[in-house]
């Protein structure tokens, strides 16, 4: 009898407390004893003081618990937030359209810890300026799918879709595309190797493995507003191998293919335009894009010809200077057009600086057909009169979403 009573009391109190706990989660943390205070100061970059910080949204995110808080900055760029204890990354971005130029300001700081012992913090975020570009990465399908007949992962159907997000014709000539080093995002707190002596990322992006460029003299490869450019690793009809894959052998598509540099890629179907491989390091016979967590970006040579570009940007790996395989072409920050950083785990370390991608996008796993796709910017699409305009705040956490199936499977 006694035990039964105890049991009932225990169950009852549990139910009571659980609802309390739910309550705790819903409300703001008003109680000083169980929350910390974060004081945030946004700083506009030099030369852009004419833009006001008033109304800029600041997002505080704890990756481990999933708690999110949003506060608004005042005209001085100051905001205060009361949040639960934890480790936060604080980011802010905002967009201004003026004279057909879209200016984006974003900045981020991660690793801010709030504990009962240290329950106040002062954060200063230097916002960085970047422009939204004409050509953006619309979709990136890198995880591969499952081969129905063998049951194994099939990752040969990797592709990227570039898109003209503006209202004028864009030219793909001399546009370059590559992945950043390291091929997979560093895990468990490791830092990437292309950092300066203090461990900070250098201003730019290290293009690793191979250098690819759209081959043209200037106006050979136009991309109309609202038009796609599909680039694949193997330009064949993959649906013949497994029906849930895509057909990448269509006329007008592009492919990463060079007969000398990538002899192990499938022979591209006629009608597909091969990109020009202008640089390669290492003995591999195919181009490597990670299936788990690649960091893809597009860039220009800044007007330089190829030899000059290579000579000026060739950077040995600071941690392993004589290992040729890990040397990169370090593209300067201003020459990077767009980038998307894909993670495998929430706490992977970033390879891109905030100007290129202030966040990350993550799929549940590889080999299941997932792809990452940009979200549609409803306001801008309506303003453009029906031409789809995608969201580009240089933050893939906001700009991208995960698709269950790659968009080209529906063609």
């Amino acid at each position, binding site marked *: 009898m006694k035990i039964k009573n105890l049991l009932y009391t225990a169950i009852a109190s549990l139910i009571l407390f659980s609802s309390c706990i739910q309550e705790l989660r819903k409300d703001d943390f008003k109680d000083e004893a169980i929350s910390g205070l974060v004081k945030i100061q946004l700083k506009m970059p030099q030369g852009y003081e004419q833009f006001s910080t008033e109304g800029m949204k600041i997002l505080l995110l704890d990756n481990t618990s999933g708690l999110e808080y949003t506060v608004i900055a005042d005209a001085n760029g100051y905001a205060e937030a009361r949040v639960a204890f934890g480790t936060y990354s604080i980011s802010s971005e905002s967009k201004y359209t003026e004279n057909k130029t879209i200016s984006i300001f974003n900045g981020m700081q991660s690793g801010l810890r709030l504990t009962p012992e240290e329950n106040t913090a002062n954060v200063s975020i230097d916002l960085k300026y970047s422009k939204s570009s004409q050509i953006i990465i619309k979709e990136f399908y890198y995880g591969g799918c499952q081969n129905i007949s063998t049951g194994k992962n099939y990752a040969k159907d990797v592709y990227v879709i570039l898109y003209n997000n503006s209202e004028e014709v864009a030219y793909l000539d001399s546009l370059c595309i590559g992945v950043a080093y390291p091929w997979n995002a560093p895990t468990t707190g490791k830092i990437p190797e292309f950092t300066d002596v203090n461990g900070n990322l250098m201003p730019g992006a290290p293009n690793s493995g191979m250098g690819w460029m759209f081959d043209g003299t200037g106006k050979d490869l136009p991309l109309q507003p609202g038009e796609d450019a599909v680039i694949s690793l193997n330009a064949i009809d993959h649906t013949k191998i497994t029906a849930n894959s895509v057909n990448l052998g269509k*006329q007008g598509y592009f492919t990463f293919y060079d007969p000398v540099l990538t002899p192990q890629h499938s022979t591209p179907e006629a009608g597909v335009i091969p990109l020009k491989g202008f640089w390669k390091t290492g003995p591999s016979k195919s181009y490597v894009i990670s299936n788990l967590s690649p960091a893809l970006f597009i860039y220009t040579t800044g007007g330089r010809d190829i030899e000059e570009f290579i000579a000026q940007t*060739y950077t040995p790996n600071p941690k392993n200077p004589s290992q040729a395989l890990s040397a990169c072409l370090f593209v300067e920050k201003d020459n990077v057009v767009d980038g998307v950083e894909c993670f495998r785990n929430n706490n992977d370390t970033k390879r891109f600086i905030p100007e290129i991608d202030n966040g990350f996008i993550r799929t549940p796993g590889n080999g299941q057909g997932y792809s990452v796709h940009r979200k549609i910017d409803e306001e801008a699409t309506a303003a453009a009169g029906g031409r789809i305009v995608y969201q580009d705040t240089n933050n893939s956490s906001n700009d991208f979403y995960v698709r269950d199936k790659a968009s080209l499977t529906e063609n």
Partner: protein
Amino acid sequence: MKKFCSTLMLFFACIFSVFAQDSNIYSIEGTVVLKETGEPIPYAQIVIKELGQWAFTNDEGEFKINGVIEGKYTLQAFALGYVDYEVPITVSKKVPKFKILMMEDNLKLSEVVVTAQAGESINSSNKIGKAAISHLQASSVADIMQLLPGGVTTNPSITQKNNISIRGFSDVNNYRGTGFLINGSQISNDASMYNGTGSVMNTLPTIDYRQYSTDNIESVEVIKGVASAEYGDITAGAVLVNTKAGRTPFEISFKVDPSTKAFSANKGFSLGKDNGYLNVDADYANAATDRRSPVNTFDRLNFGLTYSNTFNNDRKPFRFNARLTGNFMFNTAESDPDAGKEDFSTTRNNEIGLSIYGKWMINKKWISALSYNLSGRYSIDNIRNYSLVANNIIPTTSTMTPGIALGQFTSGQAYVDERINDEPIYLNAKISANLNKKIKGSLFSTVLGVEFNSKGNNGKGTYYIGEQPAFFRERHYSDIPFMNTFAAFLQEEVTIPIASTSLELDLGARFTKLAIKNYDYKPTLDPRFNARYNIIKNNKRTGVSTFAIHGGWGILEKLPSLNLLYGGDVYIDRTLFQYKNISTNELLSLIQTVIEDELLDYNIGLAKTRNMEIGFNMTIGDVKFDITYFNEKLTRAISQNMEYTLQPTKYYNAVTSMTAAPKYENGMIMIKDDSGNYVEAPSTLVNEYLGSDTPDNRGKQDKWGIEYDVDFGRIKSLNTSIIVNGSYLKTTNSTGGLLYDYIGGQDPLNSKDRFPYISIFEGTANVSNGQNRDRLTTSLNLVTNIPKLRMVVSFTTQFIWMDRTWSLFKENDVYELDDNGNKIFGNYAEHGTDRVLYRDPVAYMDRDGNIHPFSDYYTTADEDLKFRLGMMRETSSFSYNFLKNSYNPYVMANIRVTKEIGDFAKISFYANNFTNSRPIMKNNARPNMLGDRKNTSIYFGAELRITL
């Protein structure tokens, strides 16, 4: 060389003819009976150890040995199921009625031997008897090596390859250098052409000992020191196995352990008076890596049939043995059933062998005995790998002619059914003649022998049923000529009595000539020398009852394996142009094929060791000491190397236009330009290096160690023997000579072309040029036998005091760079560094084949050259690279129990590491890293043996 041999033989012949009449010859007759009942023991072997003369008892237990030179000898008697018998005798007249009493070998005896004993030859050797093998519950011959001084406990496992190395660690040089002989026929795996895939060093064949079960073994002898001249094609030592022959009762046994189930049966039938004996044995074992999941299973089936008889027993006994064996291994591995659904792979090894061997006691003035051994083995090994693979669609060709030609395309996804058929054949014939002579009180025993070996392969090689992978060519192993070895050996054993001491000398030389088509090998001569000086022998009166010093020195050589000499033609295919247009069904590919002849234009030398050992054994009171120091230098071991030739190749640029309509005409690829006219497609000239495998003999191994074996004797009140043995062993593996290496990839300064230089390194293309390893172990054995309970318990504690590995560090060869880019040389064997460690090549070769010193990197003013050379340095960013990886001492204990139930059953049980002591030990070179678990995992097994 030839002159020397013939002079030597003439010299010996002269001596004997002169002194031929010097000594008197007698005969020894007697009976062998069972001690308790007096019952005669048929088929017992009586041996006069020093002369090698023997006789077998007949059905009434009677024997007669003729032609015994007068003198003092040791008489030994052996019979299956009985304790070995030994007694000193002096032969000065005819011995008419010598009675030998033998005791049954079971646990009722007061002394039971379950450890390794010192062998009887002059050089270091160990003898392991049947009782020790069954007490250990060995699942293959490899498990027996744990009993030797310096052996460490390993859990028996027949799901993976079992290797043996004598006085060495686990590396391929030691595995190949260990000889394996069953009943005097040498087992080799050197004609096996398929040994896995990978580099030359990873595909050298070694013997897989799990193919041979242990239940039909009568005794094992392990020769560790300098082997005498009759053993060839070895560099370390030899394991000699003798199987049962004679009358034995019907015996069946069941063995079980966490991953294995085994069953065996054997019986020796008497075929009637003077008709000899027939021994039949069969063995089956089944193992799985994980009993819960049948994904990887292994089966072994052995059967053997031995006929043995002695003819003309009274006068010139002729011993005849014929043994037919079948050894079969089956291995099935299925892929994870949750992943690739249909993939599986099976391996089937089927081996049949026949050996005919024996000895004939001729007892003439010019020859005492003749030994012969003829054997042949034929193996059929079939491997099947079946998988469903989705590959890229790329051009392929299977042309067998070099040049530029059109090719085909692979299909995308297909079932790949790979079959590998390897059929090695071994033939062996060895005849030796022995002559015993006594000259002025010293006994001379001369052995002269010849041996012929032939190895070849009749297999089909690798082939595919259905879809073939890109660029595959069939290669039939049956096209490879046989490798024949002719050897002759001469051995002279002299026993010289000097007052109360005796000096035994064993001088020998072995002559080897390898003959194989397309190669021309010079013959080699290996001298072997062993000596033992018995200062005090069995003198019970003084404190030190035995004291002997022994030593040896010799050269031993190991032949290269067949797959090194005939590695198969190498086809290098490069696709120059490819075009695919499914809508118009156009497919065109142009492939350039270069064929590299498999025949090397040099001879791969024989690996050679210079072995030496020196030691002593001493008995003080009840304690026996046996301590040996050994030193082996292996040179000319197989190592890998490459040869690079420049081949400028014209690659066509990619063509994907829908209207190109390419065609191959007049040696050029023509495509339609914009106006519809055919022009040659644009191309780029790429300076490619083609590399070919050129294995050579730059490997070296320096080995030295000290073995100790102390037998403290039996504590009678406890019925316990205490034996402490162990060894210290150190090996250094390194490579000499020059290695050619190509970093590959594109030229960083000109992306259209390949990297222009070949690096030439000293030894290896690595920051370190070799590896060191040493280990000090002690094994404390307590053996208790309780005759009343018919039980023996052995308790072994294994101490590993030191187990270190470290990379070879060569001073002034490895450096780091300071902040200004200047070299700093440090002693990295003492301390680590956080900076990157560098090692430079010694030279580099340019596209014209000219070799320049690497010092150009430091002296050149050409920035491009300096940049490229900088990429050729070897680096390591491991701060602990040269530090000694060592662990503090750790201990483990094993227990083994054997109990007899009456006369018909015997149960054994063992537990390795029964305390489950698996400490996580810190690596002293990397104290902040997660440690390693030491000691084997706990393992146990039981065996039931029934004798009917």
